[in-house]
């Protein structure tokens, strides 16, 4: 039986009433869990695994996969409505999504996030069907030098995130790099900047940091806003305009490509494709000064990249048995609990099962779109809640989210500390995006560089002698030059200082 026949048989399995119901309920539960700050897709999937133990293997995995991308979208909702990222990779959506909500455009922001997620997820799943095995062999060629060079591309995009001042953007980026040094040195195992605190040995938790910077910081900032008691402007329209659709088309296409290709590489993490997409969209935009002020491209691209990544991350899992991220590792555990061993033999030994699961990705993405769009008016209604009540509820959600990371009040304290930092940065126009991007990239870069140098006995030439690594370094130089030139133009255009 060839691929198409297996896929059609898979669809026949998925369209059975009980499997459709499991996909639907998985999306609902995933979305509800994803809305809770700090309880991201990984924790949400782990929490809901017990629900699936009583199901047959096909139904269980269909439901778990639906939970996974439902949770990814759930994190978007609070990012847009409350500037509170449900999980770290949603933080970039806060930059423009929340600004759109403040301008009464929460509906279009949520809608484009849902549509972009659907398109990105569908493209990634189609890629899984057609290109899984050949692309996996390329992904296997990624070693430490290639990882380092790939992260350099991301780092060079930081300049594109500047708005008011290049100096402030650079300060933000350097602070992110410095904060990432906290913890155990990745190669020699030496504690750095831990101040003899056990809690800092693992480094600063990204979830507590972004919840503080974006969520608590925004709450503190909003306390100074005069005007209506409700948190946002009255919604102008819940629908996307023709201009919105036109402006989002190219970012969605680029976001799909970024998320798909990065999803093939194990260990990249969901935050990297979303930030790369945002930085790229700002770099190529004819109006980069609109980013950070409610540019729909700043939502469309990253949200598409996020979901494309989430679906593409299944490719190394299914074809090689290598989980690309924490959530796919949890799903791998769930697969094994149901008697399925991910890896090259899965497609040969269990073709009906695996193609049913892949077919469920198409259907699950569609269910998520159909589910999320009608709920947008309900989510937008949250914005009418009086500010004091909303602040109290958001604070409580943040406390639960931060505490549930490690069952430690230290993370709540960390979140509070970064909340104050986020407020101070907002008052001094220091952009947050460079800080978060470099904070995420730095550990991967440092580890990759030092592993590369161990491989080459201290010779930096290894970065240039390997073709993929060399190509990526050339790309990063080009990206640095182009994004710096654009950033200088954008800053001068907004009357800022270089």
């Amino acid at each position, binding site marked *: 039986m060839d691929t198409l026949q297996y896929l059609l048989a898979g669809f026949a399995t998925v369209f059975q009433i009980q499997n459709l119901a499991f996909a639907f309920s998985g999306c609902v539960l995933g979305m509800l869990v994803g809305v809770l700050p700090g309880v991201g897709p990984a924790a949400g999937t782990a929490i809901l695994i017990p629900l699936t133990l009583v199901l047959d293997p096909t139904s269980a995995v269909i439901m778990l996969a639906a939970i996974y991308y439902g949770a990814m979208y759930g994190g978007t909702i609070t990012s847009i409505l409350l500037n509170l990222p449900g999980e770290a990779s949603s933080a970039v959506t806060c930059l423009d999504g929340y600004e759109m909500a403040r301008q009464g455009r929460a509906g279009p922001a949520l809608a484009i996030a849902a549509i972009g997620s659907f398109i990105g997820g569908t493209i990634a799943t189609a890629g899984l069907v057609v290109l899984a095995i050949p692309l996996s062999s390329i992904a296997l060629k990624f070693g430490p030098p290639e990882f380092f060079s790939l992260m350099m591309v991301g780092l060079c995009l930081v300049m594109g995130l500047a708005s008011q001042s290049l100096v402030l953007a650079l*300060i933000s980026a*350097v602070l992110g790099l410095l904060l990432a040094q906290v913890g155990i040195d990745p190669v020699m195992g030496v504690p*750095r900047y831990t101040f003899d605190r056990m809690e800092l040995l693992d480094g600063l938790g990204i979830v507590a940091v972004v919840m503080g910077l974006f969520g608590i910081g925004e709450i503190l900032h909003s306390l100074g806003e005069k005007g209506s008691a409700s948190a946002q402007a009255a919604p102008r329209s819940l629908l996307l305009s023709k201009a919105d659709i036109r402006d989002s088309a190219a970012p969605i296409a680029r976001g799909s490509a970024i998320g798909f290709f990065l999803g093939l590489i194990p260990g990249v993490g969901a935050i990297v494709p979303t930030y790369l997409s945002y930085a790229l969209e700002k770099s190529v935009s004819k109006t980069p000064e609109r980013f950070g002020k409610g540019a729909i491209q700043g939502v469309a691209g990253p949200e598409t990249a996020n979901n494309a990544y989430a679906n593409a991350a299944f490719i190394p899992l299914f074809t090689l048995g290598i989980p690309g991220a924490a959530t796919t590792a949890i799903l791998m555990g769930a697969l094994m609990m149901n008697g399925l061993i991910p890896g090259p033999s899965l497609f040969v030994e269990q073709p009906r099962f695996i193609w049913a699961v892949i077919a469920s990705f198409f259907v699950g993405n569609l269910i998520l779109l159909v589910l999320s769009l009608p709920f947008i008016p309900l989510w937008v209604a949250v914005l009418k809640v009086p500010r004091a009540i909303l602040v109290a509820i958001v604070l409580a959600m943040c406390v639960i989210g931060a505490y549930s990371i490690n069952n430690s*009040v230290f993370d709540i304290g960390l979140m509070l500390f970064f909340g104050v930092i986020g407020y101070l940065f907002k008052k001094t126009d220091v952009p947050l995006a460079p800080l978060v991007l470099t904070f995420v990239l*730095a550990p991967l870069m440092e580890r990759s560089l030092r592993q590369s140098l*161990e491989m080459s006995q*201290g010779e930096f030439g290894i970065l240039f002698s390997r073709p993929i690594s060399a190509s990526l370094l050339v790309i990063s130089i080009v990206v640095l030059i182009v994004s710096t030139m654009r950033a200088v133009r954008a800053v001068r255009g907004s009357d800022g200082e270089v």
Partner: protein
Amino acid sequence: MTPRHFILGIVLLAVAVMAGQEAVQLTYWTALGPGPGFFPFWLAVVLGVLSLLLCVRSLPALRLGKGEGALPDRDVMVKMAIVIGALGGVVVLLEPLGFRLTMLAMYLLVLYGLGRRDLLLSPLIALLGSFGAFHVFTQWLAVPLPTGIFGW
């Protein structure tokens, strides 16, 4: 640039100096390349240079007294103190007192402190947000939350 940027520059300069001091105590270079102190050291140096640049750039604004005042209005500062104090109180009391009592207190402090002083809705929201949330997270989602010395 405004006077706030000058203050920010000074603070960041202090952070850079502290970071550099810690970095020099680590191994700078090994036989196989950068040691644990290499990146922290150079990051501290770059941060220090950028901070000095920020201070220099904002010096004219400081001299002219340009921009908003360094501090927000008194009313805003009180509200910020309530929110920060509420979260600080959670950090201190969450494990000894337990989730339910601590969050009940946090809700009441924030709601009343930010102006919701009604006698019915605010206590109801506080109860649902503390006791109700505890039940949802511990019973439905199996997320452990502290119960404190009173078992609450």
